[in-house]
């Protein structure tokens, strides 16, 4: 499987914001300063102070929660890696926003025909075998583009080479069952403004565990209820007959 991904190395980021601008240009948005992810900002370089920065954008999970929770299958995990949203299907229930462990999907709160907005990992560029806008513009190589397996190997190499530099693990290797985006952090996820309590396994199984049991539970419950219907009705019939007998015993 050739899933593409991105590797972000926090120690190499200088916070120039070029990737923000490239992202906005690529998605035909008005150039603007980003202070958080919202319906008009898919990519945010957060200033953590002391010349340390973190990037926020869709992690493109291997087993995405949004794909699993969407009642109308509006989200798709593409073969190339990006997770994309289909405007024609969405009914605006916002379950994806509630469920996403990285809080990535954003909603157009002031639109009459609101869209779910999020980073699409430049799917249109990927399909032409071009790297994402953010990776191709990055002047320091803090964000690199490639096959996920290659990036993971590279991340482990950097981690082994200079363990002191990083927090000791790769954010995204196991988060939510693994993501196409990998992050080498010099500060803890919480200190980097990233969700720190993301479960280390894929989330869709949590609800699938329950849903898959319905075809077993419902027939049993139905048979039980049907049985009780028949059984208790018979009790009434017996009561009728006994009532009849009692009346006649009095004669």
């Amino acid at each position, binding site marked *: 499987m050739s899933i593409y991904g991105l590797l972000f190395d926090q120690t190499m980021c200088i916070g120039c914001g070029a990737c923000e601008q490239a992202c906005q240009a690529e998605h035909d948005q008005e150039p603007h300063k980003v202070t958080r*992810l*919202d319906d008009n900002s898919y990519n945010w370089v957060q200033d953590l102070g002391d010349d340390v920065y973190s990037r926020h954008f869709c992690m493109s999970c291997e087993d995405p*929660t949004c794909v*699993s*929770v*969407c*009642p*109308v*299958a*509006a989200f798709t995990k593409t073969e190339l890696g990006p997770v994309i949203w289909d405007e024609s*299907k*969405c*009914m*605006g*229930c*916002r*379950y994806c*926003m*509630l*469920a996403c*462990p990285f*809080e990535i999907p*954003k*909603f*157009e*709160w*002031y*639109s*009459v*025909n*609101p869209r779910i907005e999020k980073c699409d990992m430049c799917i249109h560029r990927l399909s032409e075998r071009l790297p994402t806008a953010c990776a191709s513009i990055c002047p320091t190589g803090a964000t690199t583009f490639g096959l996920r397996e290659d990036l993971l190997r590279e991340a482990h190499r950097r981690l082994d080479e200079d363990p002191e530099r990083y927090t000791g693990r790769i954010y995204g290797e196991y988060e939510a069952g693994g993501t196409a985006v990998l992050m080498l952090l010099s500060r803890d996820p919480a200190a980097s403004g990233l*969700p720190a*309590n*993301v*479960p280390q396994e894929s*989330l*869709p199984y*949590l*609800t*699938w*565990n*329950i*849903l898959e049991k*319905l075809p077993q539970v*419902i027939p049993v*419950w*139905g048979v039980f*209820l*049907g049985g*009780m*219907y028949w059984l*208790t*009705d018979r*009790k*009434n019939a017996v009561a009728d007959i006994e009532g009849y007998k009692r009346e006649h015993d009095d004669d």
Partner: protein
Amino acid sequence: MTKFTIPRITFWRCVTVLLAVLVAGIVVRRFSFGLGSISNLHDGMPWGLWIGFDLLCGVALAAGGFTITAIVFVFHLEKYKVLVRPTILTAFLGYLIVIGALLVDLGRPWNIWHPMIFWNPHSVMFEVGWCVMLYTTVLFLEFLPFVLERFGIHRPLRLWHRYLTPVLVLAGVLLSTMHQSSLGTLYVIAPQKLHALWSTQALPILFFVSAIPLGLAMVSVESYLSLRAFGKRLHPEILRDVGKATAVMLLFYLTIRIEDIIVRGEFGNIFAFDAASWFFLGEFVIGGLVPMFLLFRRDIRENPLALMGTQALVVLGMIFNRMNVAVTAFQLGTGADYIPSWMEFVLSIGMVAIGMILFSYCVRNLPVFEEGPVEDPRPADPIAEMTR
């Protein structure tokens, strides 16, 4: 020639008109400027008061529909039959309100039917959507005989009651089982976003089991409201037994609830006496243990006023529970900042008001109660009537 009469101006009529104007204004605003213009929802708090109250509580409060029909038609406890029709009406109207609230809450409500053609069986919301559609249909079919009877169409009714009713009741119980529980399952996918006292894999079981005492309590409260509004005779001997059943089912639910917390090792959180612990104690003790102990007492059950008060406490406790899952636990888990806007409150109150107006209209025009349509609303003295 019809004579036009100006309706009497009363306090409640003024309130109703004011509410109707406000709700209409809010809906117009929502469909002109978007959800953000009427609600305090934001990206960090995608679901708020409407999902918590209108949807979770609305469906839970309709639970009397499947509970009472199951007791009467599946378990053949015929003495509860007088409760069936008002309960079916409540459940049907409850589901219509849920759909009404969804049409406002969904971002693109014109796509509400999409789960019918775009399938995703892995999604809990997909199951919820199908349950809403199918169970509303079942409730409509259970409600239809009221209308047929009203217009004197009796022949199909005999066959209807004989063959269709058992099927509808069975389908209704199965769909309710799935629907009540699936509303809890919705939150299972985000365990890290809920506070530990509410975040559990057992949510579907808890939501289903708690719906049963809630349904029973709701039936009792509704009987009391019908007495106040339409002078309906209470059936103290029946409601007494309903109270008993509520107590047992409540004990059943509270046992599962506390066991789940113990098994997950979160028992200490109950006595942390922080915000979460107070919200939990409010729901569990005041809305659960207290009414349960009261309902186990014979003197409470035999005093209709005390019985109704206790059952109302059960209803409030369950509303508290659903709101805790949807709003409090989510806020405590994620740190999201949210207080519903006044427009969110007005819309929710408006939905309840619409339900009550429809209920009252149906009661006056359809054979909902055993005596047929209600002629003269309002008894002379409801309290005297109750303690008669």
